[in-house]
């Protein structure tokens, strides 16, 4: 793995199951890695500055928050304007993730993916219509894939032996 020394790696490994819910969670990591608490905090800060760690935070289950309608909207946007449309769609306040991806023709003609959450499907459909208005005639086809169940959610894990 590029640019991570063995201590950085040990720190990340020690956090993979989640931070300890104790008053001094970084001290717990320090104990397991065998360095000082201040060093753990310093190194985590550096890893955040470098972008290796995007943030330290919680991820909530949207469904438990009442956002039970979760639609992956997918769009076939003309290639010439796909980036431009993507930027506009990604800027909509209700779109949580927006990506340009390759099509898988012939079965999958869609190249723009935008995730939309709502408390009801009607709400998600209304948001989908807003996206359709934005995309305009550059959109040749679209679909929406509602999620039924989370089968797994663990996030990125490091293997023990590294890379």
């Amino acid at each position: 793995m590029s640019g991570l020394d063995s201590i950085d790696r040990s720190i990340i490994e020690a956090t993979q199951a989640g931070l300890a819910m104790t008053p001094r969670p970084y001290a717990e990591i320090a104990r397991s890695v065998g360095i000082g608490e201040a060093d753990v905090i310093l190194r985590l800060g550096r890893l955040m500055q470098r972008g290796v760690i995007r943030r330290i935070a919680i991820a909530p289950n949207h469904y438990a928050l009442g956002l039970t309608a979760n639609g992956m909207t997918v769009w076939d946007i003309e290639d010439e304007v796909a980036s431009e449309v993507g930027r506009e769609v990604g800027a909509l306040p209700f779109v949580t993730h927006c990506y340009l991806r390759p099509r898988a023709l012939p079965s999958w003609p869609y190249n723009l993916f935008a995730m939309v959450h709502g408390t009801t499907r009607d709400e998600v459909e209304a948001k989908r219509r807003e996206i359709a208005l934005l995309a305009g005639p550059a959109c040749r086809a679209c679909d929406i894939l509602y999620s039924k169940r989370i089968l797994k959610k663990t996030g990125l894990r490091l293997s023990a032996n590294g890379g």
Partner: protein
Amino acid sequence: MMARHPMAANIALNDLDRRIVNVLQEGFPLVAAPFAAVAAKIDIPESQLIARLQRMTDTGVVTRFGPFLDAAAMGGAFCLCAVAAPADRFEEIAGIVDGFPQVAHNYEREHALNMWFVLATESPEEIDSTALRIEQATGLAVLRFPKLEEFFIGFRVAA
């Protein structure tokens, strides 16, 4: 570890829980006593914050608490993948796919392509090798949708 969270979890969240979720989605401070710092911000005792967070984690309201890694910044890679699992084999296929440690998350969706999962690996090569192993293990084609461009605005939702 691989608890399957129901889509319509019936877990009562009070206003305090929602405030905690909103604050902790923004970030967790890098100081020696981070819970005390967050607790002061929302004006509750540290012990209450920890107890509430523990409860929300135990009940599946909070699915992860800790550092979110950027695989690309570490030389690794992410790839969204999809398979069309036949209805009578769906649970079996889900078990096989979830059993791969490279599968970071996996969702059942309403479509002919009914299983969508993200591979997170330490090298770009491992994406292809893992997708091939999943194809061999399931007998299904694994469609790969690597991101070409990200229009990033953040992951936060209002609790």
